[in-house]
């Protein structure tokens, strides 16, 4: 890591003195759950990394932990002006449950989708009430990603179709706290020729976009497809999102690795895809992004590296992205440039990615990783992450409020 410090020093000396103030001032972190200790492991994981949401005057965080020996889904919430989280709720049933995807509906309502015993389950929850659980019919289904659409929900997930995982989407009707699944479809009209995994989904109202990991190229690539017929669940043929890097001297292998795409809607019908990308194979995964470009031949545009040159010398993991209607857009990840994992942000600033910002309170001694973020309607940033003293030690879920200070 000394090598990285030397390079960082050189880069600092060479870089122009261009200092931008960060948009958010972060409060001291608070614990999301009081249930932690030896042999309890919390995970903030979901396909598309949506584990935090804001509805009405509350913020909620959904995670999985094994406090009773079985991985289960829990949700905690707090009023935005309260200091501490309260009202921890168990969401999942008796089976092993993983990867809760959380979205906000209006009126302090939240929707969750998760995997339990190899099926996708969903339910709504308010600070006071739990809606009934529904289970989708798809067998061997996992990696669900949830989004709001019209007055209801859309859930994308990967289900086993013979040999391969096949990314599918299903609309869910919402009536109070009750959910009713509609007819779904595969997001690639052609039969799967290779694994399709870890989808992320967004709705623009008249269009639905799903991106996922795809192995049809002989290595993992990011692909996406679009539906502009939201009534009948039909998608256009998928397109590649992550660049094809051709190395004509390569004798072996099919290409570089990518992993875990996240999508966020921002501004007026804009969408950003962000993912971990190993095209610079010496330095491990970097964070790359691409913008949705409606009306153009290519569904997503040029791949752009998000993290700055300092980050380019270390490896990045666990990409997540959040946007708001005003056009604000921020990407978060964890990053080992200082030997331990810290939470790092970069935001869109005059059309370019800002210098990286290591979040105070989510950095320093110990391991801070698996971030999940959401912007509220005032542009404040809500961040939750996993804290552990050592790489394999017990965990805590922490939350920090980032008050917007520079618009």
């Amino acid at each position, binding site marked *: 890591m000394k090598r990285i410090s030397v390079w960082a020093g050189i880069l600092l000396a060479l870089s122009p003195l261009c200092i931008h103030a960060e948009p958010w001032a972060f409060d001291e972190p608070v614990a999301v759950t009081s249930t932690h200790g030896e042999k309890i492991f919390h995970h903030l994981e979901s396909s598309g990394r949506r584990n935090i949401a804001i509805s009405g005057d509350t913020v909620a965080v959904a995670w999985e932990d094994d406090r009773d020996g079985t991985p289960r889904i829990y949700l905690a919430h707090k009023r935005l002006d309260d200091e501490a989280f309260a009202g921890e709720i168990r969401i999942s049933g008796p089976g092993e449950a993983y990867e809760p995807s959380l979205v906000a509906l209006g009126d302090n309502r939240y929707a969750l989708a998760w995997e339990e015993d190899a099926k996708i389950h969903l339910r709504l929850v308010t600070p006071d009430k739990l809606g009934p659980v529904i289970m989708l019919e798809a067998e061997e289904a996992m990696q669900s990603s949830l989004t709001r659409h019209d007055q209801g929900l859309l859930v994308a997930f990967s289900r086993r179709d013979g040999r391969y995982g096949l990314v599918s989407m299903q609309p869910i009707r919402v009536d109070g706290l009750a959910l009713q699944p509609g007819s779904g479809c595969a997001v690639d009209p052609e039969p799967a020729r290779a694994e399709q995994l*870890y989808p992320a989904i967004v709705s623009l109202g008249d269009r639905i976009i799903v991106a996922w990991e795809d192995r049809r190229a*002989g290595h*993992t690539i990011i692909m996406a497809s679009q539906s502009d017929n939201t009534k009948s669940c039909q998608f256009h043929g998928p397109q590649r999102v992550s660049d094809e890097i051709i190395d004509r001297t390569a004798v072996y292998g099919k290409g570089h*690795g990518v*992993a875990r795409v996240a999508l966020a809607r921002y501004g007026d019908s804009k969408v950003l895809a962000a993912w971990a990308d190993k095209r610079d194979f010496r330095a491990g995964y970097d964070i790359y992004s691409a913008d949705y470009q409606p009306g153009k031949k290519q569904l997503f545009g040029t791949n752009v590296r998000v993290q700055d040159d300092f980050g380019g010398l270390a490896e990045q993991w666990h990409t997540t992205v959040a946007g708001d209607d005003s056009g604000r857009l921020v990407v978060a990840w964890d990053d080992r440039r200082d030997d331990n994992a810290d939470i790092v942000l970069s935001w869109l600033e005059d059309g370019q990615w800002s210098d990286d910002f290591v979040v105070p309170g989510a950095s320093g001694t110990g391991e801070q990783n698996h971030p999940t973020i959401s912007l509220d309607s005032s542009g404040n940033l809500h961040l939750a992450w996993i804290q552990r003293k050592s790489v394999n030690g017990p965990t805590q879920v922490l939350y920090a409020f980032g008050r917007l200070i520079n618009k």
Partner: protein
Amino acid sequence: MRSAVFLITLLFMFPVMAEPPQGYPFQSFDDAMQQARTEGKPLFVYFGRYGCGYCEKTNKEAFSDKQVREAYSQHYVLAYVDAESGKRLRLPSGERVTEREVGTRYNAFVTPVFTFMTPEGEELLRLVGVQRIEDLREADIKVQGLMSKQGAS
């Protein structure tokens, strides 16, 4: 017909996608950890990924060596981790994680990474990137020496 059979045989001998090398008893990380503890044998963990060119090169040019195969199959419990996979396994601590997360914890930021570990999971030696036959043989001698020292002390 004969050439078609030969071609199919070749395909099985040298899979196009990077996977653990043929002819080695690689198993999942958690099963291998358990076996290593039971038998008191060191672990050899291969962190690869789907389509990894340097994994394929090492498989064909180094793991194909008979002496390497014999030494590694005898001396170690062998584990293969697809560092991009969502397959779940259980760590010795009891934590359920994906193979990708195991790759993150053991800093498999490139592939291949080869990590020699004690049965308790303590790292003894790490090899990063393409390996030659002599690299694998040297590493084996070094790790066997370290294990002997540990056993003697």
